[in-house]
């Protein structure tokens, strides 16, 4: 097996003595669609926050494409090639859809105050490139028509897509999606599956998603990891996971989603 794109080893995280993640080890191979599932409060979002530099694990190592990510600030991790969406929509309010997506290009461009004030040729070229990339990302996720609307006034499902477009605009190698299907209806979920596949197939971006809809997880992912009470309890193909007794117990034990798995 080749060196994984993302590799976590022995991650421990706690808040005020409260253990949230315990000795979590985990790897994502380049080119995969991998999923992270687990009951509410299992620590999935916290794990994303460790990977993206928002939380500092007290133990363990995180490496991405051979680079040590620990101690890097979130913006450096994004620049290194990891983009994310948030479980709760975090679009920039009062700004248009296009302006929101343009934010992703910030770490791929460099013009500063002087360039802006003097309107240097390099600055104007860069602005055009930012617009073009943002527009292309919006078209890719299928909401280009709404580019000039204030982002937070869009229907919920479209806001989710704008968030994905914004993450794509950072030109990532790895995309982390935190519950991208939450709040979507059946049709929208089917479209999301298509979108996730095309992000991987057409843009060659590795995907790791957190999802509660196990049906969706089983259909879209090649590897599934299960987190329960801050511990990684199972890892395998969707089929292996569906029949793993520890997984079934974790879901039954938490009583929500008990039959969602089956």
């Amino acid at each position, binding site marked *: 097996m080749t060196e994984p794109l993302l590799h976590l080893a022995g991650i421990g995280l706690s808040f005020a003595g409260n253990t949230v993640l315990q000795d979590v080890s985990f790897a994502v191979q380049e080119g995969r669609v991998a999923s992270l599932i687990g009951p509410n409060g299992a620590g999935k979002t916290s794990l994303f926050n460790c990977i993206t530099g928002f939380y500092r694990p007290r133990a363990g190592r995180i490496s991405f494409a051979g680079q040590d990510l620990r101690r890097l600030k979130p913006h450096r991790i994004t620049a290194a090639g990891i983009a994310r969406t948030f479980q709760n929509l*975090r679009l*920039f309010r*009062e700004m248009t859809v296009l302006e929101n997506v343009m934010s992703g290009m910030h770490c791929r461009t460099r013009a500063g*105050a002087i360039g802006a*004030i003097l309107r240097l040729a390099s600055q104007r070229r860069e602005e055009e490139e930012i617009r073009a990339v943002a527009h292309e990302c919006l078209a890719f996720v299928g909401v280009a028509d709404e580019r000039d609307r204030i982002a937070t006034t869009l229907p919920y499902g479209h806001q989710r897509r704008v968030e994905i477009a914004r993450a794509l605009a950072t030109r990532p190698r790895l995309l982390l999606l935190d519950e991208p299907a939450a709040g979507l209806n059946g049709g929208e979920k089917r479209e999301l599956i298509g979108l996730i596949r095309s992000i991987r197939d057409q843009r060659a971006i590795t995907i790791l998603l957190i999802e509660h809809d196990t049906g969706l997880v089983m259909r879209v992912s090649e590897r599934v990891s299960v987190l329960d009470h801050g511990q990684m309890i199972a890892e395998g193909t969707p089929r292996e996971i569906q029949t793993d007794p520890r997984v079934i117990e974790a879901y039954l034990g938490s009583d929500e989603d008990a039959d969602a798995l089956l």
Partner: protein
Amino acid sequence: MASDARVLARLAGPLAGFLSRGIGRWIALALLFAAMAAAPFVLGEYATVILTNALLYVVLALGLNVVVGYAGLLDLGYAAFFAVGAYTVGILTLRAGMNFWLTLPAAVAVAAVAGVVVGGPTLRLRSDYLAIVTLGFGEIVRITARNLPITGMASGLSGIRQPWLFGWHIATPRDFYYVFCVLATAAAIVSARLSDSRLGRAWLYVRYDEDAAEAMGIDRVRVKLAAYVTGAIIGAIGGAFFAVNLGAISPPSFSFSQSVSILMAVILGGMGKIPGVILGAMIVVLGPELLRSLGEFRLLVFAIGLLLIMLFRPSGLWPGRSHAK
């Protein structure tokens, strides 16, 4: 006053719409420049001096607007940078005999360094430490100026010479009025260009959602520092020209209440909106002058008016999106 504010708001709506449209905009700009050029001849010397002061306020308010309106940072000691510019010019021209135009880059450099020294460590912290630190910085600068021989202690510096520009001796109130017209116009253009740029958007991203901005690869500390230093430089340039205009500077010009007045101009017209900030600066300077007939009550009436505007137009007098271009 309350109904005044509403009438103003109702008038400003269509007016702003008209001004932002293609040809209407050019006509409005042409009229504005004609009026600005003619004003000293029509209004006389006293009014020209007052207008010059209003234009200085436009420069300072637009500078502070980069910090407060664009980046959303509360700066309670902005007059410190105004002082840095004024004293740098005062000291270098008087004590080192330097040409004013050569002291300008020095004023900009000193302000930038001061901005990095004050903002660098503070902007790393979340929340509103900046408000407290800038408040302290403003007082430190003023008290230092009061106590150092080189800044002339409490009586300040006087005899600062008026500059020459290619054979033009900038000396009369009318000369300075035109200089400040150019400065205010330049500040407005700089503001507009910054607002519509990668950096300008980054300020908004960070202001609206720091975490999402970081996740998009934006270094929030660096971006905030850029705003703080940009504001510092604009303030120092304002201070430099203020020093040669008056020929004398002293600590009371750079007090906390000066910082508050500039901040009031920014908030009053509408943070982040360039025409709004210009309007705010005009009101802060011209308001008390226009109410002069009320005698000793004028400041009270003015303050009540401001309060009512805040109550009925909390996002400022100028309508529209806070970063409308």
